[in-house]
């Protein structure tokens, strides 16, 4: 059979040409989406000059990058969970546990072993989430919500409500110091984004997660250990959330029991705005990073507008909606879906 290809070169070539275009338009779409997210952030920063002349500066960019670091780290884990079609609602509590363990046990110069152990504890909690979802078949929504409540209660019992201790020095260094005029955490975030992107898009693990997210049954038949693999994102997500807790400890020198609350929805929103489907199996971490930066930028610009909170909230929501319409996957993929089996 091999020799028959190319007998009728022209016809097959035309066909191949046709296929080429389709495929390339698919790749373009992902890229366009990511570029669009970052471009929108840039436009927002530039437009913010109209709000205040001090905005749009290099310093503002650094502030945004610093503030978005929490969201970026958090949404990496959340993104992996969403990639396999789950959802992790336990992140706020794990932010707290990470922060509490770091301050309560890690402030006396023994951070070098306390922090890794604390991250492992978080990952273990995440693994319990994963086990509940995979083994017991509990919907991720309920499992992670329940473990969130449990962990928050445990943290309350553990600390009596007031986590004592201060930030370990290493965390203060990460969040507070500057190197060559740029906050250390900005270097960290760039590194994290690259590593995160590699993990999600270039590793065997990432590949398997995509496969499970796209088609769980096919992944099982293809010989992937779906159960174990599906639990891993929950562990990673928990560890990421725990690390965000530590970053917050370094940032403001101490932990409180409610410091994770404001990260739940933005963490999910960053992933979705970054172009991933909430149903799993698509998206890229670079897009998520863009989503996180876009949301943080929006917050920065909004808070500089001199209006009542109500109006500012309305503007914020409207801008999110407009951004979504502009970033609409549909614009690119609507065609693709229909001509797929042409």
């Amino acid at each position: 059979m091999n020799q028959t290809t190319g007998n009728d070169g022209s016809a097959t070539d035309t066909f191949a040409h046709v296929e080429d275009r389709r495929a390339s338009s698919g790749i373009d779409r992902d890229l366009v989406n990511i570029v669009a997210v970052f471009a929108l952030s840039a436009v927002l920063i530039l437009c913010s000059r109209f709000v205040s002349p001090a905005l749009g500066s290099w310093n503002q960019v650094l502030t945004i990058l610093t503030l978005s670091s929490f969201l970026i780290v958090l949404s990496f884990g959340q993104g992996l969970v969403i990639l396999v079609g789950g959802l992790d609602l336990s992140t706020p509590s794990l932010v707290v546990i990470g922060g509490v363990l770091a301050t309560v046990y890690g402030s006396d110069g023994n951070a070098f072993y306390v922090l890794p152990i604390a991250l492992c504890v978080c990952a273990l909690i995440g693994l319990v989430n994963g086990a509940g979802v995979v083994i017991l078949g509990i919907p991720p929504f309920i499992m992670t919500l329940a473990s969130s409540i449990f962990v928050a209660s445990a943290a309350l019992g553990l600390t009596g409500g007031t986590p004592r201790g201060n930030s370990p020095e290493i965390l203060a260094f990460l969040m507070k110091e500057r190197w060559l005029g740029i906050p250390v955490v900005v270097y960290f975030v760039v590194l994290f984004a690259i590593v995160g992107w590699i993990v999600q898009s270039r590793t065997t693990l990432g590949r398997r997660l995509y496969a499970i997210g796209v088609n769980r049954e096919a992944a099982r038949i293809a010989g992937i250990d779906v159960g174990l693999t599906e639990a891993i994102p929950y562990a990673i997500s928990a560890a990421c959330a725990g690390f965000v807790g530590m970053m917050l400890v370094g940032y403001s020198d101490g932990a409180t029991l409610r410091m994770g609350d404001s990260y739940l929805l933005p963490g999910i929103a960053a992933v979705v705005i970054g172009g991933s489907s909430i149903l799993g199996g698509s998206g890229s971490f670079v897009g998520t990073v863009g989503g996180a930066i876009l949301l943080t930028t929006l917050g920065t610009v909004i808070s500089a507008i001199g209006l009542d909170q109500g109006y500012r909230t309305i503007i914020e929501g409207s801008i999110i909606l407009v951004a979504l319409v502009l970033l609409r996957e549909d614009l690119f993929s609507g065609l693709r879906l229909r001509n797929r089996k042409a």
Partner: protein
Amino acid sequence: MSYAASLATERTSRPTLRLKRMLSGGAAVVFVLYLAMYALYAWFEPSALSLYTFTNLMNNSAPLAIAAAGETMVVLARGFDLSVAGVISLTNVFMAIYPIEGPLGALASLAICMAIGAAVGAINGFLVAKLGLQTIAATLGTMIVCQGLSLVFLDAPGGYVAQWVSYELTDTLFGVLPISGLIVLAVALLWAGFSRTNTGLGIYAVGADEQAASLSGISVTATRFAAFVGAGILYGLAGFMLSAQTATGDPNAGESFLLLAFAAVALGGTSLSGGRGGILGSIFGAGVLMLLQKVLFAAGVSSFYTGMFQSVILVAAIVLGNLIGRTFSKGAVR
């Protein structure tokens, strides 16, 4: 085997089939759970069986039950609707700053609340069904806008809900039937009717397989749109009932409903990936969530242990439901 003969053998097994379907549906499991928890509650706290306690429990559960019912419509059509929090806040604020007295006033208020919900639902529907945005993202946007609007209208808790609404709707009918319970019942009945319309069936179809639904002649756009509008109307009703209970306005009133509504839906056996479940389960799911606190209180669980117990019981309930469901059924049933 002839057609008629084979059909005859099939028919004999139908009643058992129906029973299996009922038991495998989430509603039955969560209903049993509700009864069991109520029994436990009554055992710890005999006055749980009094009309007064029951009415209070109904009043307390009704807003969440109705909100969860609305959320179910969107979830069935494979979506997430975060705007539930925004609509409840917005309608609650409306009720508190524009009280309209008397039974007719209440009716007018109700209509306006539902209209607000329907309008937000229509915007969601437009963004999702027409523009193709992801449900969770689009409704996040509308939720934030609604919260902003609530703050614009009422910048701190306050205002007074019409007396008629706050007294009559939390009372009992003929001294035995809690009115809020009757309203929840009415929602359940309306749903029973709606699920027997073509649109209602379409929601299940679209939630299960959008492409197949479209090839079967169902308008996916119109169905999605209807699901969001229907959900919005129920959120409006939930906000109305919440106002009746709290008798005042709070621009953040809806926030706590967000996760609870989803939890109630999931607890009620509706699949969060669409196409399977129903609002009856969600209503009992909401009931279980509200009852859980009561049971734990009555059992003397206090302080931070409450949270631990809540989460463990939540998980145990789902696992139990799965087990029962699995025992009685295999394969996908509506």
